[in-house]
């Protein structure tokens, strides 16, 4: 699947056919590239321009004119600073949880089940199964499972972990759990992809050199699967930090769990386009920093 985008699982391109210069390349590239310029680059530029706009002269709702209004940014940071922190906090915790769940799972499927191809593909299908059923309905199912009268709350109350008045829906707990659940496959698949190609002879060699199981893991297995871990982390963290379904009040959140995506959505639909754009740009910059660091490390040839 597309997770090769980060997992470096593609075949070695240096061995591909000799490259020729040709006008054919231009014909092949132009439609798609122009399309992306029109629908991706231009909207980003437009987003930057919008983020500096101020209300128009006749004060009609949704009417804005261009001005270098930096205040949109300082206001966004001032008003939503706490929400930004929460966004990255929630996404970071969800990413770590997804990693803790995914690594052993990916190891089991990619290494332990290597001798049983049928079981390997069966478990792999179970990992990608969530992709095939509506993300929104699955999140609503989680909401029902964590409902006040639902099985989890009732069970936790009966063993005394939750008090009789306590609840789970609308708290940071369910939002983080929802984010973790929804993005686990994005973490598992790239780690699986790199563990599946792990050459076990390296691990054997480590054993021959008297390395214990822990040493073999930290010094051989983990470093060799690191590209997958980095890819999975980005693929989980990026969508989680932009998600506004899990944290919205009709799903797993409440007004106290608002994330950056909710602000962008709410401001956009209340026609406060400059604020929405400023928050979008700030989110984009915050995401691009780790991505650029990753790209700088791995090189542009391995981007796709």
């Amino acid at each position, binding site marked *: 699947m597309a997770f090769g985008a980060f997992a470096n699982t593609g075949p070695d391109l240096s061995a591909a056919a000799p490259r020729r210069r040709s006008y054919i390349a231009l014909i092949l590239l132009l439609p798609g*590239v122009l399309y992306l310029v029109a629908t991706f680059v231009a909207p980003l530029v437009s987003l930057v321009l919008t983020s500096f706009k101020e209300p128009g002269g006749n004060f009609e709702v949704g009417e804005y004119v261009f001005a270098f209004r930096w205040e949109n940014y300082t206001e966004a940071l001032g008003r939503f600073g706490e929400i930004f922190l929460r966004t990255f906090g929630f996404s970071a915790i969800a990413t770590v949880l997804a990693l803790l769940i995914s690594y052993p799972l990916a190891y089991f499927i990619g290494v332990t089940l290597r001798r049983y191809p049928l079981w390997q593909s069966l478990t792999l*299908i179970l990992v990608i*199964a969530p992709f095939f059923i509506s993300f929104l309905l699955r999140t609503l199912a989680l909401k029902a499972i964590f409902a006040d009268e639902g099985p989890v709350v009732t069970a936790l109350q009966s063993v005394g972990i939750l008090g009789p008045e306590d609840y789970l829906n609308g708290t940071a707990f369910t939002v983080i759990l929802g984010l973790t659940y929804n993005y686990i496959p994005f973490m598992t698949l790239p780690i699986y992809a790199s563990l599946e190609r792990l050459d076990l002879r390296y691990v054997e060699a480590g054993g021959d050199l008297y390395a214990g199981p822990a040493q073999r893991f930290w010094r051989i297995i983990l470093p060799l699967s690191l590209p997958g871990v980095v890819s999975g982390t980005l693929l989980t963290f990026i969508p989680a930090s932009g998600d506004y379904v899990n944290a919205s009040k009709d799903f797993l959140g409440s007004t106290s769990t608002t994330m950056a995506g909710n602000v962008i959505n709410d401001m956009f639909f209340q026609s406060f386009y400059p604020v929405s754009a400023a928050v979008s740009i700030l989110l984009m910059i915050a995401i691009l920093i780790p991505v650029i660091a990753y790209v700088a490390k791995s090189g542009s040839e391995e981007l796709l």
Partner: protein
Amino acid sequence: MTTQGAAVLAETESTPRRQRRPRNGRGGAGSLVLGVYSLLALGLMLIPIVYTIVFSFNSARRTNIVWRGFTFDNWLDICDDARVCEAFGNSIIVGVSATVAATILGTMIAIAIVRYTFRLRTLVTVLLFLPMATPEVVLGSGLGSQFVNFGVERGLWTVIVAHIMFCISFVVVTVRARVASLDPALEEAGRDLYASPAQVFWRVTLPLLMPGILAAALLCFALSFDDFIITNFVSGNAETFPKFVYVAASRGIPPQANVIASAVFVLAILIVVIAQLSASARRRKLAKSG
């Protein structure tokens, strides 16, 4: 688990103790714990899916939250709530249109990127990578405010425009791998047999790329069908299936929504299982003949 235990036994018997190989991935207590942990994790991940499917059989009408007994009615008249069906139809229209367009554009780019050198190659790579590294909410609000700025009326076709945009990169990634593993000797053989460049493309290159292109198309359709975050910003009054669910979430979702989601799920899983089985059958056949 018993076969694994037997494998471990066989191994300890046949290899002298001192030279015993590390048991990573070869059974043992560690593997047992790992297996139990993995099955538990997979089981927990399936709970919301099972819940969604089970509640498609709930005999509730508007608010499908409390279990009110088993019924097949929801499956028999899926279009009881006409809006569910209309939203589903819209999702199909969007998914098919976006998939066709994105697959064609993406495949062309994938061939160009693997086969040719050109200036600004790095720039094109970055341009293809960035949409995947940008949070969907930024893509959506950007395209949405672009439409607002230009006074474009939003509807189904703006949703299609947006879905083509985010699909292209995924198509390029998927097809590119296939292009890179293509043996150039096969095309050469075609040319040696006096095939024109067009003939080589349609009768050699394209059929060989087909599995990759089909995988890319399936991925694109799945992404499009389930997308809500971008769709919400660019859809105006048009309702796709995820948008219907989102809007209905506050006032109760009819069980027919669960029916549609479950049916799509079962169909998709069937396609994947059949694809897997036929791929492994083909591998076995190749192994036998080769």
